[in-house]
C-alpha cells in the first residue's frame, strides 16, 4: 500500500457515486473548505458527475487567496530592501499586490526566491550569512509546523540572518463566519484533511452542533472525496449533524500533538484580515514575543500600510462561497492564469484557476453574450 493509488481506484469511486445517487432524495448544498479539494473535485470530474444532486460551494481554504494585499505589499517591500532575500512558496509569486507581484518585483531587481520548504530557506541563510533571509510564511495550520520548526532550528543552530514574515491563517474562524452569515447556504462542510492532520477535529463538535451542520473530515484523492460527500449526504438525509472522520489514515481526533507543541511554542493566535472576510477574530498566527528576533515585522520595523483590494477582482465573493468564479465578468477574459486580476486565478488551490483549467470548454455565463455580440 502506498496510500495513493488505492484511493484513485475508478471502480471504488463509481461505487461511491452510485451510493450517493441512491441516498440523495434532493439536491444539497455543500462546501469543501480546502482549495486543494476544489481542484481535485473538478479535475476528477466528481463535481460535474454529481452536479444534479450536490451543489458545491467552494470554500476559503486557499491561503494564497485569502492573504491580504497589505501582506503581499509588505513582503514586496522587504524584498526591495538592499541585502534582503525574500523566500516564499512558488504559489505566491504571481499573486498581484497593490502595485506589483513578487514576480514583478523580482524582474525589477528585488531578491526573491521560490522554495519548497521554509527549512530550505533556513539552509540558504546558513550558507549565506551576509544576506538577510526572510521567509514569507503563508499557509494554514498545515504549514505552520514547518515554519515554526524553521524558527526553532534557527535558534538552536544560532542562525542570526533568518526571519519569518508571518501570514498564517487559521481556518475555523472562517468556517464560523460562513455559517454565521445571514445569507449562508452551506448545509454541510467537507473539512480540510491536512489542516485536521495537525489540529484534529475535536474543536468542530461545538460548531457542528451550534449551526446544526454536519462536518466531515476528508482527504484529497477521488475516493476520499466521494466517501466524504457520501457521508455528508447520509447525515443530511437522516437529519444528523455530527463531526465525522473519513480520513482516519491521516487524521486523529486530537491531531498531531508533537506538531501542535512546535506551533504553539513559536506562534500565538491573533486577529487577521482575510480577503473576502475582513478582520477575523483568531483568524491568524503571529510570532510570540519570545521569538521576536526571528519576526521580520519586528526586525525590520515595517510601515503599516492600508492597501485597496484590486477593484475588478471579485475574489472575495468567490472565497466566501457567494458566487461561482464564472459569475465574474472578468473570468477568462480580462482575468486568466497568465494575466490574473486576483489571487484565486493564480493559486494552484484557487477556485477561479480550477474553473479555468478544468472547465475550459464551458463558456462562462456572463461571458457568453459578450462573445456573441462581438
Amino acid at each position, binding site marked *: 500500500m502506498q496510500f495513493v493509488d488505492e484511493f484513485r481506484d475508478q471502480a471504488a469511486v463509481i461505487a461511491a457515486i452510485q451510493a450517493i445517487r441512491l441516498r440523495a432524495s434532493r439536491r444539497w448544498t455543500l462546501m469543501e473548505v480546502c482549495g486543494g479539494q476544489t481542484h481535485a473535485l473538478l479535475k476528477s470530474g466528481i463535481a460535474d458527475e454529481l452536479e444534479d444532486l450536490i451543489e458545491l460551494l467552494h470554500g476559503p481554504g486557499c491561503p494564497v487567496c485569502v492573504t491580504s494585499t497589505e501582506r503581499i505589499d509588505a513582503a514586496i517591500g522587504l524584498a526591495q530592501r538592499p541585502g534582503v532575500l525574500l523566500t516564499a512558496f512558488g504559489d505566491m509569486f504571481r499573486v498581484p499586490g497593490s502595485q506589483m507581484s513578487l514576480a514583478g518585483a523580482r524582474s525589477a531587481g528585488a531578491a526573491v526566491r521560490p522554495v519548497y520548504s521554509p527549512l530550505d530557506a533556513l539552509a540558504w541563510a546558513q550558507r549565506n550569512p551576509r544576506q538577510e533571509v526572510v521567509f514569507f510564511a503563508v*499557509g494554514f495550520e498545515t504549514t505552520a509546523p514547518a515554519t515554526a520548526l524553521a524558527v526553532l532550528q534557527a535558534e538552536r543552530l544560532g542562525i542570526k540572518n533568518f526571519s519569518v514574515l508571518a501570514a498564517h491563517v487559521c481556518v475555523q474562524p472562517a468556517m464560523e463566519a460562513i455559517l454565521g452569515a445571514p445569507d449562508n447556504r452551506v448545509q454541510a462542510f467537507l473539512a480540510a484533511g491536512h489542516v485536521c492532520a495537525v489540529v484534529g477535529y475535536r474543536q468542530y463538535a461545538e460548531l457542528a452542533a451550534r449551526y446544526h451542520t454536519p462536518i466531515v473530515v476528508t482527504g484529497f484523492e477521488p475516493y476520499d472525496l466521494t466517501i466524504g460527500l457520501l457521508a455528508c449526504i447520509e447525515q443530511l438525509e437522516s437529519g444528523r449533524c455530527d463531526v465525522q472522520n473519513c480520513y482516519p489514515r*491521516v487524521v486523529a481526533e486530537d491531531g498531531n500533538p508533537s506538531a501542535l507543541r512546535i506551533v504553539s511554542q513559536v506562534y500565538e493566535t491573533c486577529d487577521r484580515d482575510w480577503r473576502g472576510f475582513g478582520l477575523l477574530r483568531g483568524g491568524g498566527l503571529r510570532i510570540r514575543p519570545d521569538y521576536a528576533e526571528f519576526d521580520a515585522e519586528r526586525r525590520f520595523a515595517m510601515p503599516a500600510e492600508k492597501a485597496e483590494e484590486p477593484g475588478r477582482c471579485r475574489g472575495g465573493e468567490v472565497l466566501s462561497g457567494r458566487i461561482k468564479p464564472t459569475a465574474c465578468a472578468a473570468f477568462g477574459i480580462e482575468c486568466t492564469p497568465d494575466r490574473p486580476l486576483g489571487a484565486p486565478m493564480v493559486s494552484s488551490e484557487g477556485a477561479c484557476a480550477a474553473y479555468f483549467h478544468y472547465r475550459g470548454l464551458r463558456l462562462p455565463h456572463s461571458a457568453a453574450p459578450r462573445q456573441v455580440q462581438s
Partner: protein
Amino acid sequence: MILKNSQYLLSGERFTMCLGIPGRLVAWLDRDPLLARAEVEFAGVRRVCHLACVPEAEVGDYVLVHAGVAIRRVDSAGAERLIAEIDPVMRAEPREGDDAIR
C-alpha cells in the same frame, strides 16, 4: 506518471499549499528532537525530510510530508478501518421510490 508527479510536486516553483504527499521512511539520519531528519521515498524519488513532528515514526512507516516536513505518520489500520466502516453504507439497499432518482 506517479514518479513524474512526485518530482513535479516536490519542486519549489509549483507548490500546492495544503498538499501532503505520503512517502515511506527509508532511513533515519538524525533523531535529535528538533533537528530530526530522515530519508523518505516517494514512488521511487528519495528526499531528505524533517521529522520533528513525527518522532515516533520507524523505518518502513509511511509519513505525510508537507513543505519538507512530515506532519503525520500514516495509519495503515486507519485506512483499513475506513474501508470497513464505509462498506455497509456502500452496500445499502435502495429505498422505495429511489428508482425515480436514477
